[in-house]
């Protein structure tokens, strides 16, 4: 039997012309108006989508619920998503269960906790907030963005690390991010955890102050991902791989400080984040802390920020268990294995020469001194004193 191409004629190996062409070229990709949608905006602005044979059509979404519905209905092919949106859908928390795929991590860190300016005279950190909460009859209200999302889980973790029970000592509600700063001013909410620029904006308008960066809760914590349904990834593996390549390249571009200046200008546009450029830039440009670390948002870090570690997703499941959101003990590893498309990610990274770690778990020390390394997740979930 003769083939039109012998492999010898194509030293590139298995990538014979045509065999890796995207099954679907024009993609509707959702995003939420947050600074960390930057990789998608940059991928389109710099033409990285076309470089890999795709045309990304970005569609801003009004809520994470809308992202979920449109991914499941096929109105969106993929989306900028909370890590926990994918996990929440996979586990059927609060809505229809559907098998999901996480193709890559888009960033780590870069979120913050903001408190109302009205609390500033008494509160400057978690410990003084705890004194206020426990010494007063008032039930304070804290907002985040989505029940299964990282803002909820990092806020609860931070509060609990300071001996404040997030479900019993305070009220936990969801407020759309653009309404949060105004909520502080009106006194509807006393604090919140959200992505940028909504912390920087409250501070610039004198309505609130940033009490903690989420990197203080967990340095380089998992944050946004590129998500699609499992079905979409199964039926369009070449498209999914090309999409990861385009976004990896955008993430690499965003590692250069001068390019973040450019990204701030793109993000400020009305079609994207629609917020003042300098407010966006104030939390996007890398800043070194006194100890030499860079506590802000991380998009690339030689690919360290992009590998979708299984342990990152398993941490979320453990927190769902901790807060009573998941009744039955899940098979942590199996759930994570089902969602994370490590195969596609590794192929995309290899083609770009981006380093991929051998391990599928990573070890981190969180604000309360506990270490999370993906080992015995069920015991980890039970190990917290403050829980539902």
């Amino acid at each position: 039997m003769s083939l039109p191409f012998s492999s010898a004629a194509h030293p590139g190996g298995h990538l014979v012309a045509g065999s890796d062409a995207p099954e679907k070229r024009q993609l509707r990709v959702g995003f939420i108006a947050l600074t960390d949608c930057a990789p998608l905006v940059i991928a389109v602005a710099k033409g990285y989508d076309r470089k890999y044979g795709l045309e990304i059509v970005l569609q801003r979404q009004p809520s994470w619920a809308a992202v979920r519905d449109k991914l499941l209905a096929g109105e969106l092919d993929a989306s900028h998503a909370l890590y926990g949106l994918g996990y929440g859908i996979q586990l059927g928390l609060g809505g229809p269960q559907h098998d999901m795929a996480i193709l890559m991590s888009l960033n780590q860190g870069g979120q913050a906790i903001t408190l109302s300016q009205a609390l500033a005279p008494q509160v400057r950190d978690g410990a003084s907030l705890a004194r206020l909460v426990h010494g007063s009859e008032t039930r304070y209200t804290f907002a985040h963005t989505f029940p299964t999302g990282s803002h909820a889980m990092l806020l609860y973790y931070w509060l609990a690390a300071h001996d404040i029970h997030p479900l019993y000592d305070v009220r936990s509600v969801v407020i759309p991010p653009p309404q949060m700063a105004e909520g502080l001013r009106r006194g509807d909410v006393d604090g919140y955890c959200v992505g940028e620029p909504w912390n920087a904006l409250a501070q610039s308008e004198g309505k609130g102050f940033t009490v903690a960066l989420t990197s203080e809760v967990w340095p380089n914590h998992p944050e946004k991902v590129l998500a699609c349904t499992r079905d979409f990834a199964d039926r369009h593996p070449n498209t999914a791989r090309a999409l990861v390549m385009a976004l990896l390249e955008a993430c690499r571009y965003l590692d250069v400080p001068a390019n973040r200046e450019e990204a701030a200008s793109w993000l400020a546009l009305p079609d994207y984040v629609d917020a003042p450029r300098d407010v966006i830039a104030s939390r996007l440009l890398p800043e070194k802390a006194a100890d030499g670390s860079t506590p802000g948002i991380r998009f690339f870090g030689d690919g360290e920020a992009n590998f979708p570690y299984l342990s990152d997703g398993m941490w979320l499941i453990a927190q769902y268990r901790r807060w009573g959101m998941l009744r039955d003990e899940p098979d942590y590893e199996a759930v994570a294995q089902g969602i994370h498309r490590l195969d596609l990610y590794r192929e995309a990274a290899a083609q770009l020469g981006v380093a991929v770690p051998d391990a599928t778990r990573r070890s981190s020390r969180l604000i309360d001194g506990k270490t999370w390394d993906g080992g015995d997740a069920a015991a980890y979930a039970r190990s917290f004193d403050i829980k539902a």
Partner: protein
Amino acid sequence: MPRVLLVNDTDKPIAELREALQRAGYEIMADVAHARALLHAVETQRPDVIIIDTESPTRDTLEQLAVMNAAAPRPVVMFSDVADQSIIRAAVRAGVTTYVVDGMAPEKLAPILEVACARFDEEDKLRRRLAEVEQQLADRKDIDRAKGWLMDRHGLSEAEAFELLRSQAMKQGARLGDVARQLLSMSDPPG
């Protein structure tokens, strides 16, 4: 009869459901226009059904109540439990999402959804038609300006100018109006 709460915080005039639902005998609470009012209404007035634009930014506020039902003052569930899938599909098409408070029988929801769908399905068609007409008008204006510019600066006849735009649109696989706007943004057109 179920008590219905309308969330009216987008361009879609959800509040206009009030009359139709009242005529059908439902008790309609004062509608709310943002997350704070929604939370207050759910906690203090205890609606059985909440109707909200699929595109409302306030939907995630309801999602929190749906997931955290152990801790929330009022448990809320999504409408996905309703048996009649065709009604749900119609609701999705009309862009209406309904959250049902725990304990209400699913069959009681169907007529409410039907009213909402009848109202907004039609609305959506009208709106799409209106958007199409507006787009056509905008295209025609820009195509005329681009033609005029080609005729003035390059001495083309009107037919030649139009043919140039048309062939460029074919080549790019783009709409004529978009090609005209592209040309106008690159050149320095008169007026």
